[in-house]
């Protein structure tokens, strides 16, 4: 069933892609085949492959239960927040929180997660900022 749904989504993506490609405004100084042909070719392959998934699906993958799925979504949300907060809070503070969260969800105790968050943040800061001189996000406190 998963593959059939995947095929339907793939087909939808291919169609949207074709539709978007058809709206590309051609410039007056185009080459012989223009900017649309290659996207059309790609969409054809994608569409045919998707049809194949729908007609001949593979065996069902083992999907995680609702709890685990929630876990993955939460981790992605935390990472998105991390990306947003980097320039606001600075590298060290944001990283402590993000690492601690991930470490906690991967099975560390809360205290140990905080410890590994602090160690990871300062470790990366030391290696990449102080030793290698990479530019990391600066917060209001300068680190």
């Amino acid at each position, binding site marked *: 069933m*998963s593959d059939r749904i995947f095929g339907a989504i793939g087909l939808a993506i291919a169609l949207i892609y074709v539709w978007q490609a058809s709206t590309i405004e051609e410039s007056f100084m185009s080459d012989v085949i223009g900017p649309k042909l290659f996207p059309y070719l790609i969409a054809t392959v994608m569409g045919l492959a998707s049809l194949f998934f729908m007609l001949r699906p593979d065996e069902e993958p083992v999907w995680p239960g609702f709890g685990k799925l929630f876990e993955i979504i939460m*981790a992605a949300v935390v990472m998105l927040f991390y990306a947003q907060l980097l320039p606001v809070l600075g590298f060290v503070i944001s990283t402590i929180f993000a690492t601690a969260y991930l470490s906690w969800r*991967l099975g560390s105790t809360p205290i140990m997660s905080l410890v*590994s968050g602090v160690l990871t*943040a300062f470790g*990366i800061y030391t290696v990449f900022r102080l030793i290698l001189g990479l530019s*990391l996000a600066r917060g209001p406190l300068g680190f």
Partner: protein
Amino acid sequence: MDVFASLSDGFLIALSWENLMFALLGCFLGTIMGALPGLGPSNGVAILIPLAFTLGLAPTPALILLTSVYYGAMYGGRVSSILLNIPGDEPALMTCLDGYPMAQAGRAGEALAISGIASFVGAFIATWGLVFLAPQLVKVALLFGPAEYFALFTLAFATLGGLSSKNQAKSAFAAALGLAFATVGMDDQTGVARFTFGEVHLFDGIDFLVVIVGMFALSEVFIFLEHHKASDLKHVEPIKIGRITPSWALIKYCTPTMLRTTGLGFIAGVLPGAGASLGSFIAYSMEKRLVDKKGTFGKGDPRGVAAPEAGNNAAAGGALVPMLALGVPGSGTTAVLLAVLLAMNITPGPLLFTQNPDVVWGLIAALFIGNVMLLILNIPMVGLFTRVLLIPPRVLMPIVAMISFVGIYGVSGSTFDLMVMVIFGVLGWALRKLDVPLVPVVLGTLLGYAMEVNLRRALTISDGDYGVLVGSPLAIGLWTVAILGFVFPIIFGPMLRSRMHAGRATDPKDLTDE
């Protein structure tokens, strides 16, 4: 001879203190990454590219660093195969078959040592193969016009799934998806925006580094999040390593095996669609048929450890031939190395050998040096690398995630790219669950631009006549191989796969089934 002159120039470049240091660092990091389950050669190299880039390394040292990581990871993959029966990466799968029984019999040290030596022999001879074969291939490649290149790129995608590919439709879908990502942004030749949805950040396209790091490194974090209960239950008992220097008798005993499997592995590496996993598989099964008279293979025969290790390291060297000479990688890790070159603004292919000989030959010389370093690192220091296996994923994976963020932020400094990377991480996770291979997606993103340019150039030259695409014998040959390479696995794939996995029926479910 010409080749030797170029090679000695290469050694002059590679033997500077700076480059030696990078080679050593790369070998060390690579071995660790290869040893850690869940962090194979491709993710290892992937997280380091943006870092090498932002550190402002010149192309040669950056390449030396990252290819040393590549070779190192090929060495390191065997450590967890032998000690834990969990392959550190896919090519190390076959090493489990005899390595783990040896470890259980108290001969772990010997197994590690002989596999280290086999890796060295495989990689060393394969690097010589690279020295002689790559310039020959370059001569052929100079005959390629845009139409042939377009056919060659198609060939690369058609054969990428490899002979053991499960579902060719999924490989094709993955390639198309990657190519679609590559079309986002400003069209170079006409200056019109494509698929940007009015988003300013998308005008200069999706950075392939963002795609690679998201798909390879972050998706691994999600996979671990999903499985972490399973990995917590498994406590690693310390295994007695035993003596770590092999006896001469043992080395002599395994030498014919190593030499034969090196040859096979190298060929498997050069050919499109085979790669290191198949190299180690062919090597193991051929040796088994050839020398296993008493049925000791699978029960801890040292030759069963030497064969796949020599095979997969030789294949790793062989895979560099098409990557450097044609600019078309045949495996996941070489695809990532292609990304390194593109990030450094170097276009691999025949012109690389004439325009940047210092890069090519410096790199090849570095491979020789790295190999010797790896042998020296691996025999006495293998105890250190086995310690690495004790780092729990709950500490390791967040670090992997954070270093990925640091790298991408260093390249672009934009939160938009970081968010896109997270999205690619989730997408990579979902695709892996659906058994869609990620390598074609990444390769599509990398090659999409060049593929389209060549198609349009060919048709512009022929003034819109599509016949030009099959207009030369060379092009027709490439299309034929592409079609055969795509169709063959559909017919023979199921048979080959069942054989590859037959020996491992009793294994615990491993998390690194990528």
